[in-house]
């Protein structure tokens, strides 16, 4: 057992070292936020995620695709079947070829992927001054500090760069973007969307909601995973305890 404890200690040291490895990566560390899905046992705040979807749909989706998601997935954050059908039907998707060999447009269905704003990366760049608005399906997993970073980015724009920093034409200064100059203009302004539940649509609130939505989109399995994890680890703890008792009993006749 002594060796196991020593190992556990070494592992703890190694894991805490890991945290500082990321910190040394270059970009400043964004302040930690209190997320509904944070910690070991958090779950997604459904109301916030739904508001976040609204922000995505009305603001982000003008440029950013989310091609890993289908409309049917929205059931996870509490949208009803009828709502999902209505949302999907708002867009026209290309289908086909039909029996005449023609491609045709039809209203979206729940099984369709989120419609992308641009047909391809070249078209996206052409419409955005050469910059590519990245796909947001995995954005929280694809950035160091995930949700904290995205929230900091969305709320971290400045009208003017700090004194002494030369202005980059066509770029925007952000406190949290690596290198600070980001092609995306400040996307969120107060009252840009009107929330159906009456929540005041401040920039911070919208940033928080859309981050919650995108965190769910990155890890839709998170709640199921943690719930299963609790059961698995409890089971293993009991099993380990019983196994240790058996081990002691088996070894008891060896005097040492």
């Amino acid at each position, binding site marked *: 057992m002594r060796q196991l404890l020593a190992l556990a200690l070494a592992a703890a040291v190694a894991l805490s*070292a*890991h945290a500082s490895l990321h910190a040394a990566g270059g970009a400043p560390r964004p302040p930690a936020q209190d997320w509904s899905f944070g910690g070991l046992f958090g779950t997604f705040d459904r109301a916030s995620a739904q508001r976040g979807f609204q922000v995505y749909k009305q603001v982000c989706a003008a440029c950013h695709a989310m091609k*890993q998601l289908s409309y049917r997935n929205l059931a996870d954050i509490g949208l009803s079947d009828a709502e999902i059908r209505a949302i999907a039907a708002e867009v026209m998707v290309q289908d086909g070829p039909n029996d005449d060999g023609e491609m045709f447009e039809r209203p979206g269905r729940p099984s369709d992927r989120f419609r992308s704003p641009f047909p391809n990366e070249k078209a996206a760049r052409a419409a955005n001054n050469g910059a590519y608005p990245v796909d947001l399906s*995995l954005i929280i997993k694809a950035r160091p500090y995930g949700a904290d970073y995205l929230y900091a980015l969305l709320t971290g724009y400045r009208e003017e760069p700090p004194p002494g920093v030369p202005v980059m034409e066509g770029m925007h200064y952000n406190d949290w973007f690596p290198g600070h100059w980001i092609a995306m203009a400040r996307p969120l302004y107060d009252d840009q969307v009107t929330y159906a539940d009456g929540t005041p649509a401040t920039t911070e609130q919208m940033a928080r909601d859309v981050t919650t939505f995108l965190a769910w989109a990155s890890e839709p399995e998170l709640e199921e*995973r943690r719930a299963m994890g609790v059961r698995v680890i409890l089971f293993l703890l009991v*099993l380990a305890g019983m*196994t240790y008792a058996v081990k002691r009993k088996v070894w008891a*006749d060896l005097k*040492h």
Partner: protein
Amino acid sequence: MVGLHKSEFKNPVVRWIDQRLPIPSLLQKEYAQFPTPKNFNYFWNFGALAMVNLVIMIVTGVFLAMHYTPHTAHAFDSVERIMRDVNYGWLIRYIHMNGASMFFIVVYIHIFRGLYYGSYKAPRELLWMLGVVILLLLMATAFMGYVLPWGQMSFWGATVITNLFSAIPIVGPDIVVWLWGGFSVDNPTLNRFFSLHYLLPFVIVGVVFLHIVALHVTGSNNPLGIEPKGPQDTIPFHPYYTIKDTFGLCIYLIVFAFFVFFAPNYMGHPDNYIPANPLVTPAHIVPEWYFLPFYAILRAVPDKLGGVLLMFGSILILFVLPWLDTSPVRSMRFRPLARPFFWMFAISCVVLGYCGAMPAEGIWVTISRVGTAYYFMYFLVILPLLGKLERPLKLPESISAPVLRGGGPVPAAAAAKPMEKA
């Protein structure tokens, strides 16, 4: 009866099989009665854990391969499909992904156990060398597996590592083209990596089998590093070590489960959730954590060929370790002078790992060089010299002697018939 194996099994079915195919007898001899030193500590669990880990990787890998598409245009999306649409696909993939890290944690502890207790010394040289072969195969397999999701780090890691071969004089560039199957890391590269990633684990199974055969010839080393003097020093593998390994396995699974269920991406890099893009180079290309010490050695040398040679040399040197270490004493417990050098070696590996994660500039290069120098010094200078200079502590008479504290005679019941108790 001539031609039939003499079976001692009573069960008629087992007996019938055993007479014709004596696998039950073999298992009985090699896994039940197998005489094992009685003084293992928990570091002797890690061989069994590595074995279990290998099985977990093969089983999850087979299921992942049913859903994965090895094509540059589809690989990333097929992995996301596994994560989102395949039933429990996220579970299978996170087990496989974290299983790779767990494998290296387990194997590195297993190797350092061998280094500390001198498990590589005669007569276990070949056993040790087979282990080094397994390590090399494991690294190749892990590297190619990391390429398969076709994220940014997959692509750029593959580009950096395959490019290392271009440092070989004259034929280097041709070898790189041959490895790639083209003129850059592209679809043919991904295809062959997938093929080899599926093949190599079964090669590992084969070498693991040889590793175990060799182990069962010499028997296990033990924390005292002295050979058992007789039956009083050993106990049957079953039930003593089967139950001890099972307990260790539970602890290992708890750690494994914690990562899978609560921190599945902790040991990964966020950039690998960005699809591979040959036109955009990540700010810092870093390999998975288990390659970081070797990556630091590579970058510590200003010359590309020199760096490549040292990096491969850092593992290949393990092959000749049994002859570099001249001390006849195995366990560091009895080598007071060697012990601090060993721990400095362990620290140098950790420091090199840290440097490997840092940008190759400024102070980190200097630290990497010091770490690299010590890494090789330990094997090439310190261990050969210590064997001559050091005066080891007095070795115990036998394994039982220190175990029984007074060195008195062994109670007859202890070793003889462990299975026949209530």
